[in-house]
């Protein structure tokens, strides 16, 4: 499965030029931290926080072309808004897995590590 939209990535290459690596490294960094926060919020059943973090993850992922990951986050955001707390944990699992895959692709195609 393709976790990165190539048109968007190419546009970003154009915009960021040599700093494309920095952008994606920062992205991975931010997501990693936010995922930890997300896990805690779900544990605490803090619906508001869950919603906010999911929304933020969704946003930045869309910006870098990680659309599959972004879609998952959107689902969680919606569920959090509608208060369907019981689905959160399973959605989190999906999100975490998706992130691993996305990260791999980023590392292979962009960061070249």
């Amino acid at each position, binding site marked *: 499965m393709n976790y990165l939209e190539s048109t*968007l990535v190419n*546009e*970003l290459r154009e*915009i*960021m030029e040599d*700093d494309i690596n920095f*952008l994606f490294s*920062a*992205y991975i960094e*931010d997501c990693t931290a936010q995922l930890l926060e997300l896990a805690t919020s779900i544990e605490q059943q803090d619906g508001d926080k869950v919603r*906010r973090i999911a*929304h*933020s993850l*969704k*946003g*930045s992922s*869309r*910006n*870098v072309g990680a659309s599959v990951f972004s879609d998952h986050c959107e689902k969680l955001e919606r569920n959090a808004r509608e208060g369907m707390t019981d689905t959160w944990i399973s959605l989190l699992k999906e999100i975490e897995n998706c992130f691993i895959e996305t990260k791999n692709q980023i590392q292979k195609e962009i960061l070249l590590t």
Partner: protein
Amino acid sequence: MKILIADDNRIERLILSRVLEKEGHEVIQAETGTQAIEFFFKHNPSLVFLDVLMPDLDGYEVAQAITKDESQRWVPIIFLTSLTDAHDLAKCIDCGGDDFVSKPINQIIIKAKVNAFSRISNLYETIENQKTEIQYHNDHLIQEQEAAKKIFNNIAHRGCLAADNINYHLSPMSIFNGDLLLAAETPMGSMRLMLADFTGHGLPAAIGAMPTSEIFYGMSNKGYAITDVMAEMNARLHSVLPRGVFCCVIVADIDAIDERITIWNAGSPSAYLIDLDSEEIEEVHSRHLPLGIQSPQRFKIEPQVFRFSKRHKLLAVTDGIVESENEKHEMYGEARMLEKVKLFMHRDNMCDALVDDVVDYTNDAEQGDDLSLLEVTFPHHHLKHINVDEFESHAQTGTLDSSLSLCLRGKSLGKFDPIPMLLQTLLECRELVPHRSRIFTILSELYNNAVEHGVLGLNSAIKNGSEGFTQYYQQRSDGLAALTEGFVKVEFDHRPMPDGGEIVFNFTDSGKGFNFKQMSKKSDKKFSGRGLPLLLNLCQSIEHFDEGRHIRAIYRWNVNDNDI
């Protein structure tokens, strides 16, 4: 441009700022709503990108905070939103945003919007600059107007407007609506008044007033008659004023000793000559085009002469009164004014009464303010009053030791008034300036005698009847116009004496002569108004020769005659 980005997401900030920086803009990044507000006021950006969802204050609140102060310049706000609901999007605009961009960030759209707002911002700035410039010029203009007003008042309103027998009302904005009121005393002690109304408004009208008042005061001071002053004024205005600009005038000369008023109305509303005893009102209509229209060659002035004594009043107005309108746009009108003149004629101050009535009628104090009127009663005559113009400068002694002879024959006799020239020549002798009135009187009396009773052979007894006055002056003016033969010769011989000087006047005319002895016995005014008695009073001696055709008058003056 300097652009502020407010977004809590580092990745978004990074991408957006890079897009903008590549376009050459300077970017300031804020991570929270509070920081966004702080940076806005600190750095004064020209454009703001605002993320809607931020942890502390959301985008809407930030937008409201920074647009609260309307007095500061306009800064466009573009919301960054992933919201798609129409209500949410509309809310962006409602709370002070100017546009929104949806995420993910599309650099083409961002660039296009930034350019569009940049254009609008420039336009706005241009307008602000122009507004400042206009304000500056406006202030400057007002300052200049104030200065112009002061100069105008100094030039146009010197003279004797403060005299007891004059009431007037002059619009404070007269400099800008072209109204002019002038009053001067001639060397002979006559009071000369002029109420003028220049067409047009503003500075062009005011500028026309400058040469007009110079001519008025300059020539009146030197003793020129109304006819000469008006001819000169017309010539000057004709050459100076642009087409379509002219000057409506009423000018009047009041001779207190002869008890007569000479009036000329050119284009103004009728002046009212009021007899307070009989309550009759003589309307003096305009019989001539306003000044500045006709070329000097075609200009002809025929003033009217009326009796004017303590029982008379003159009222002159500009067209402001008649044309004043009430709320229904009905004009005040001539009929109403005549009615009010009849009603107010015995008041001490008719001007005020009329102005108040107009204000009542129009229910508009401002219109009332804009009126110009003149009310004159009989003046106190003082030969003694000298209106010495400080700006005249003559060398000392000048013509102290000199003689002059001028002979005016037939065709020139009616056309040229030699008195001002003779007077000026004599007055080149500075020491004679305090004697100006007396010398003028002597010259004037002798000359008029020679012309009217000598050459023209007029009978001044005619002047007594009520019709007689007008008749006499009509005869005089007809007579002068028809003259082809005859002459008046005027000579003066000025010689210095140890304590001053002596002027010998010799006046000769081609008339039939008169009985000097008989005339000098009569002490009344019936002869030539002032008559020989006055001359005898002023001169050291008066002799007659050649059956009265030649008169010699001698005037002695003393350097110490300060208090004449």
